[in-house]
């Protein structure tokens, strides 16, 4: 099977000012398991041919195929499509042009996306901001920026990464690839945690996998009595969480530790070398919970640009969750609660695994998300 490399995404990386190798850390991390790679990219095969066409960087291509110095013949040129947008058309026409380009390329949510991109070059994060400028004409800088954004979107870069920031409940977070973009379901998880914490008493929370920091920073923002320690395995995500904390002035009550949570993980010792005691009142996490078989059907926005390590939960989507519970056994108080966002199948399959692995936890509550799917679990220690 010959793999053709498209320079599209390298171009995108250059356009977005992100180093190409950082964009695709997720793809490279799966190179050790080639079967997974083949299934992930299976549906990118061209009709009637054995070639697989997918986006990656030159560096990752050599990692994936063990080729040093990728020869030029494998790189296909990609030029930005002529958008026909110039300084002569007003915002109304520009919007329609962008919408048509995205629709013709079968980009999902073309209408909403075109509104966001046009409003973005006009300087606003609000989707409908363009309405106040309908007869205005764009200047050269704005046209250039819009063409860049459209080219990136045609390469399936998520709208949130194009904007560089996104709102989560009452706060705005900086977002950039490959750090996992907060999903709307997770906004409800924050409500659940806040509702179950006693009010007006200081609480210490442990979070696993903050990503952009959406959960911990929302909790800190909406409850002044909380302190959070967040454990993040990805340096890029840990840095982003710290950056967001600083921007939101919440870094005083947040500690971010770069570490991976595995079966026998221990927290780093205190500064005086004494081991960390059991001290956390609760644990919250939106851990990777996607089942391995569902990873295949993800949209390109996700499997190319986001870090798949933030999604892959193993065969049954429970690998990380079980490790988190082992960690909770060591560091969360016996009467503390564990709040998790999970896959809808987990409320049904988790109890069996808890029994098999002899983990003394029980599910107290199963709560549904706004799509009526069983999305949230509250667990506590069973005696």
């Amino acid at each position: 099977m010959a793999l053709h490399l498209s320079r599209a995404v390298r171009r995108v990386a250059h356009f977005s000012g992100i180093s190409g190798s950082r964009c695709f850390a997720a793809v490279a991390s799966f190179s050790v398991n080639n079967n997974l790679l083949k299934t992930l990219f299976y549906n990118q095969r061209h009709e009637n041919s054995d070639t697989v066409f997918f986006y990656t960087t030159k560096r990752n291509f050599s990692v994936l195929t063990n080729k040093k110095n990728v020869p030029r013949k494998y790189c296909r040129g990609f030029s930005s499509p002529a958008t026909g947008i110039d300084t002569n058309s007003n915002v109304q026409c520009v919007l329609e042009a962008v919408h048509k380009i995205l629709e013709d390329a079968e980009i999902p949510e073309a209408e909403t996306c075109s509104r966001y991109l046009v409003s973005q070059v006009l300087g606003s994060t609000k989707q409908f901001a363009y309405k106040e400028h309908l007869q205005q004409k764009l200047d050269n800088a704005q046209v250039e920026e819009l063409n860049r954004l459209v080219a990136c979107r045609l390469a399936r870069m998520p709208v949130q990464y194009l904007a560089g920031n996104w709102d989560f409940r009452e706060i705005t977070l900086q977002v950039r690839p490959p750090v996992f973009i907060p999903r709307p379901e997770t906004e409800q998880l924050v409500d659940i945690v806040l509702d179950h914490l006693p009010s007006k008493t200081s609480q210490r929370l442990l979070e696993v996998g903050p990503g952009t920091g959406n959960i911990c920073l929302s909790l800190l923002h909406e409850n002044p009595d909380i302190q959070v320690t967040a454990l993040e395995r990805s340096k890029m995500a840990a840095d982003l969480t710290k950056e967001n904390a600083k921007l939101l002035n919440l870094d005083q009550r947040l500690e971010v530790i770069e570490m991976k949570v595995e079966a026998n993980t221990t927290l780093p010792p205190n500064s005086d070398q004494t081991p960390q005691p059991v001290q956390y009142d609760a644990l919250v996490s939106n851990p990777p919970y996607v089942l391995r078989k569902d990873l295949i059907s993800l949209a390109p926005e996700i499997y190319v640009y986001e870090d798949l390590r933030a999604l892959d939960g193993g065969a049954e989507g429970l690998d990380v969750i079980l490790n988190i519970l082992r960690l909770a056994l060591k560091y969360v108080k016996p009467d503390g609660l564990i709040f998790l966002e999970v896959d809808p199948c987990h409320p049904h399959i988790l109890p069996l695994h808890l029994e098999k692995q002899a983990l003394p936890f029980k599910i107290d509550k199963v709560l549904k998300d706004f799509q009526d799917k069983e999305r949230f679990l509250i667990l506590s220690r069973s005696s």
Partner: protein
Amino acid sequence: KYKMLMLFRRNISTSRNLLKKGKNSNIDKSLVPVIVEEDLEEKFIKGWGPGGQSVNKTVNAVFLRHVPTGIWVKCHEHRSLDQNRKTARKLLITRMDDELNGEDSVSSQERRLASGRRQQKREKTRLKYEKK
């Protein structure tokens, strides 16, 4: 339903918010309708697929309907779904206030006050120039 209760256990009901805010104490807010979560029907964009981590959508419009009166609103002005839900409730109360209270609605009173103030201002300016 869980999702509706969760939004308001910690927050004051938005009706009471409307009653508390207001620059002008001359506005009578006693007729502003109070909504009860049980009477509300909330709908979101269809076609979310498996949802959760597997999906990345930016369309998060909220359709909120008050079942007894049939009055409904749509809100998709925010990038956060949670904010859209909260704003939808505020919009619904305002819409219900306008439709059910007509002349006595908060927005009608505000318009009357504003036009009253504008008239007062015009009078003042007129008198000022007459004196000269």
